[in-house]
């Protein structure tokens, strides 16, 4: 049996034969991290560009939504429960971590099931879980809402910031000023959705799609398959990550999303308002919808602090091209969400740089 390192070298040798100017985009925070960590950008030829798209849930959350959840945390009697990534994301004037320091009850959990437990143990308080993420986390949150309903637990609710990958991809590819030749599709989102979200990308935009895993060798294979499609002049959906992704995804997970949520208009950082690109809790589960429970007005405005996350998320700018990058904006004092989240393109660039030589891969 050959080592995967040897296989990776072979793939890389094939990839290096490419002479055309080609830009490939990934839309998954885990790919962003994996590519940065492995130093792949410095290993592939300079004519092959690897761009990060709108695949980090924290990064694509609009400033107005960040401000709204900070308002929510300030309401007396509310316990706000969230995944850790959201804590340090700067709103217009504060962040959840600052609110917690000033006495707000903000807690970090790994699973929405933990939030349900907090609600059960604190019947005198309103526990609100911040539902964020793409189709990967939405099924877990939907199941938790169903469970709260089954228990008749009315002091628990979800503030949904969930978004769908398909409509964001459509917005990225519809922008003719950004040249993207192929899509490294997110492996874990696809484990739930299957191939469906990418049908318009191959159909309408004629761009190859490869659903790709997260090991370096997976990503190399994904890139190789995309280049092979481009050289053959075809645009198809291929699954590289077959050990986890089936063409139909996970029908049970898709069904629970549909039972609890309904697609609704959502505001994306950098992409603006996109119809039917977010998930709103259905009316029949209104008791568990924090947006219905707590009327918090949202102002739609873009950040005005020089942050260019919006352009980074559309592949228009690489993180190091932002004037704030590494100077004003660092992981310790982030200006924008792409530097806060570990899955963000700016944080990945900052942490791992562009040079792979010192990391001993290949």
């Amino acid at each position, binding site marked *: 049996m050959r080592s995967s390192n040897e296989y990776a070298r072979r*793939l890389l040798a*094939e990839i290096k034969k490419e002479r055309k100017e080609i830009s490939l985009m990934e839309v*998954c925070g885990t790919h962003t991290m994996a590519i940065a960590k492995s130093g792949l950008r410095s290993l592939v030829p300079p004519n092959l560009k690897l761009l990060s798209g709108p695949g980090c849930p924290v990064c694509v959350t609009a400033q107005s939504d960040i401000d709204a959840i900070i308002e929510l945390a300030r309401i007396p009697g509310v316990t706000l429960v969230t995944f850790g990534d959201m804590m340090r994301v700067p709103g217009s004037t504060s962040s959840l971590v600052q609110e917690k320091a000033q006495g707000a009850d903000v807690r970090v959990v790994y699973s929405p*099931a933990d939030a349900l437990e907090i609600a059960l143990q604190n019947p005198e308080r309103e526990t609100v879980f911040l539902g964020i993420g*793409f189709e*990967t986390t939405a099924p*877990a949150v939907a199941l938790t809402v169903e469970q709260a309903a089954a228990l008749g637990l009315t002091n628990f609710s979800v503030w949904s910031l969930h978004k769908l990958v398909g409509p964001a991809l459509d917005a990225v590819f519809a922008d003719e000023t950004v040249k993207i030749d192929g899509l490294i599709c997110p492996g874990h989102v696809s484990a739930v959705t299957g191939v469906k979200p990418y049908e318009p990308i191959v159909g309408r935009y004629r761009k190859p799609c490869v659903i790709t895993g997260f090991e370096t060798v997976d990503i190399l294979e994904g890139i190789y398959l995309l280049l092979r499609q481009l050289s053959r002049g075809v645009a198809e959906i291929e699954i590289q990550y077959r050990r986890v992704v089936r063409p139909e995804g*996970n029908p*049970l*997970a898709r069904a629970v999303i549909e039972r609890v949520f309904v697609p609704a208009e959502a505001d994306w950082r950098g992409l603006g308002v996109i119809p039917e690109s977010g998930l709103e809790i259905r009316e029949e589960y209104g008791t568990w919808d924090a947006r219905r429970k707590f009327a918090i007005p949202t102002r739609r405005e873009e950040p005005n602090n020089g942050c260019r996350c919006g352009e980074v998320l559309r592949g228009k700018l690489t993180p190091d091209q932002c004037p704030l990058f590494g100077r004003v904006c660092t992981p310790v004092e982030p200006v924008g969400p792409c530097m806060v989240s570990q899955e963000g393109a700016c944080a990945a660039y900052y942490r791992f740089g562009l040079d792979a030589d010192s990391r001993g891969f290949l």
Partner: protein
Amino acid sequence: MCLGVPGRVEELLPNDKARVDVSGNSVEISIRLTPEVKVGQYVLIHAGFAMQIVDEAWAHETMALLKELESYAQL
């Protein structure tokens, strides 16, 4: 958040739960979305819920293209 981690199912528990081994840590997760999973199989876990069963038959899929690459080398 979106980070999926693989875990090996060690024990099936009541209420659609399972005890899994994630890099040496024993964790309790929900298997409601992968009800057919068996002890010994790997699952992909997101936020405490198994989202998919890992198909071991494809675990060495990365070798699948090797033959093709080798055929190029022989040209």
